[in-house]
């Protein structure tokens, strides 16, 4: 009897990627930290010691307590409390959830837009290509934060009485519409290479419709760079979200992200309550750094020239 062929997981564990991963201490440490942050964010309801949004449990008498190891600190509030007596550690977990949510949602959306336009641009060529690439050039000549701010500003001006959910949509759209350019250029480059290969020629000759060639044949072959780009884009989307929220034009204050927490804490910096703003900041850097390190490792691991 022949042995059963290994499943997807088995093949993955025996593959190059996993091997490279287990031999890179930096990648493993980064993955561990990122996984921990994601876990705390996703299961904030269960993991967080307090519920910072349950007004019934808030005690104003506990406001502005320092972290536990400082004088006056209490172990129930490991990282201290803010001006309304909310536990910083719990607020961090709930805040990271919102930051990650906005970051991942906007990256998925910009991936969808960017990959579609990139495929179209690379495969169709001609005027379509020229037009899309011109738009990319113009967008790339401005810093992304400025474009995000502008789209956000327009969104706000169009819906002046927007409620919370709409503010989220506007924010995600603003970040996504800024980030798609990177995808479009990457995918276009790879598509230009792929479309001249024999399998695409063959598919075209037997009469496969262009849309099907693009989606079923070209797309799987250009996804490698897209994957690498996505990891790095998640980090930069989270930073953009934090920056917009810090500037006061991001998520509504009723559901604070890490950026909002930093903005709120900033007002207490001068009265010496540093922990209200520094801990959310540290959390933000931790997430961004670990995701960036993972992206760097993935880029090197998937690059055949470095092996």
């Amino acid at each position, binding site marked *: 009897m022949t042995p059963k062929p290994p499943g997807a997981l088995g093949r993955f564990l025996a593959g190059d990627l996993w091997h490279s991963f287990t031999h890179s201490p930096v990648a493993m440490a980064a993955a561990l930290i990122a996984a921990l942050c994601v876990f705390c964010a996703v299961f904030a309801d269960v993991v967080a010691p307090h519920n910072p949004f349950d007004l019934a449990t808030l005690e104003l008498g506990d406001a502005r307590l320092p972290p536990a190891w400082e004088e006056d600190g209490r172990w129930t509030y490991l990282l201290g409390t803010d001006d309304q007596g909310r536990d910083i550690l719990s607020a961090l977990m709930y805040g990271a959830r919102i930051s990650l949510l906005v970051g991942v949602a906007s990256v998925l959306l910009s991936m969808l837009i960017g990959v579609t336009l990139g495929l179209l641009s690379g495969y169709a060529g001609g005027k379509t290509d020229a037009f899309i690439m011109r738009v990319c050039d113009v967008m790339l000549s401005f810093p992304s934060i*400025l474009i995000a*701010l502008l789209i956000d500003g327009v969104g*706000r*001006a169009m819906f002046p009485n927007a409620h919370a959910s709409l503010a989220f949509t506007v924010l995600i759209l603003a970040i996504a519409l800024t980030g798609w350019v990177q995808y479009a250029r990457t995918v276009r480059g790879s598509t230009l290479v792929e479309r001249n290969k024999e399998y695409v020629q063959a598919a075209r000759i037997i009469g496969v419709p262009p849309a099907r060639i693009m989606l079923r044949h070209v797309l799987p072959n250009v996804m490698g760079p897209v994957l690498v780009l996505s990891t790095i884009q998640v980090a930069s989307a989270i930073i953009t979200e*934090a920056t917009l929220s*810090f*500037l006061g034009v991001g998520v509504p204050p009723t559901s604070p992200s890490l950026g909002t927490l*930093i903005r709120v804490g900033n007002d207490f910096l001068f009265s010496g309550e*540093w922990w209200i703003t520094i801990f959310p900041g540290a959390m933000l*850097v931790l997430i961004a750094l670990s995701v960036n390190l993972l992206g760097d490792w993935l880029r090197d691991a998937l690059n055949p020239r470095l092996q």
Partner: protein
Amino acid sequence: MLAFILRRLLQAVAVMLCVAFIAFMLFQYVGDPVANMLGQDATPEQRAQLRADLGLDQPFPVQFARFVGNAVHGEFGLSLRQGRRVSQLIAERLPATLELSVVAAVLALAIGVPMGVYAALRRNSFFSHVLMTVSLLGVSLPNFLIGIVLILVFAVLLKWLPSYGRGDVVALGPWTTGLLTTDGWRHLILPSITLAAFQLTLIMRLVRAEMLEVLRTDYIKFARARGLSDVAVHFGHALKNTLVPVITITGLQLGSLIAFAIITEQVFQWPGMGLLFIQAVTFADIPVMAAYLCLIALIFVVINLVVDLLYFAVDPRLRVGGASAH
């Protein structure tokens, strides 16, 4: 030659028209200027009268042409929030932003270039590895956090430097400057370091990469073979050729420094254009947003154009390419 310059100019004008069109659409379709100016109690006749006075009943191209004409003269109407002329508001804020950006750019070059050269020449030393690791951290560090930490350390804990506003300024005609007073400089230190930090890692990595590239070339090998000292080879020959792309990129980045100043200005409450823009976004103050947008686009387009033309003047290969293109 002439054809290249003309084509480039035409492109610049096209980009500016696009931006102006976006700004114009903002005016047209976001918020109703008539309702803003008259309030809720106005009669339909009053509305129609104002509409005619403002030229809002005219066809679309005519309105757009008038908008562009006004914009060229720097006229964007009144700020919805402050009720003052937008051009005047921006003129007041422009010096603060420009001073901050230029000082930050100089600072980033003055620190970034030596660090990059060091990291290239001693690429395997311990300190170089520290520099490269720190620069990776710098990429992951949001700019405003650097500002907050600087404020915490130097303004709150050590109480050495102020953290708020511009300090004493001297008026030189319409231009106000903080560069002539000690107080102004003290106020400038923390914001300019914060703004420079985001450029610093970029410049350092760029100098290192370019320098490593140049050190591999033949003419450096020949220079060494001639028996020139290391100092002469590194600084007389290699660095000179490294700096050409570095200065170009820094020049190009001056525009993004001005844009990035938005964040620094918010952290330090620096009374520049960025702060004005953020307030405009928060309150949906369309005229101010549109004016800022057009001004920033103009700065970017002019910088890009100048750099392109300079390249053209410096690099003879481009001239050949430009001639064969048509």
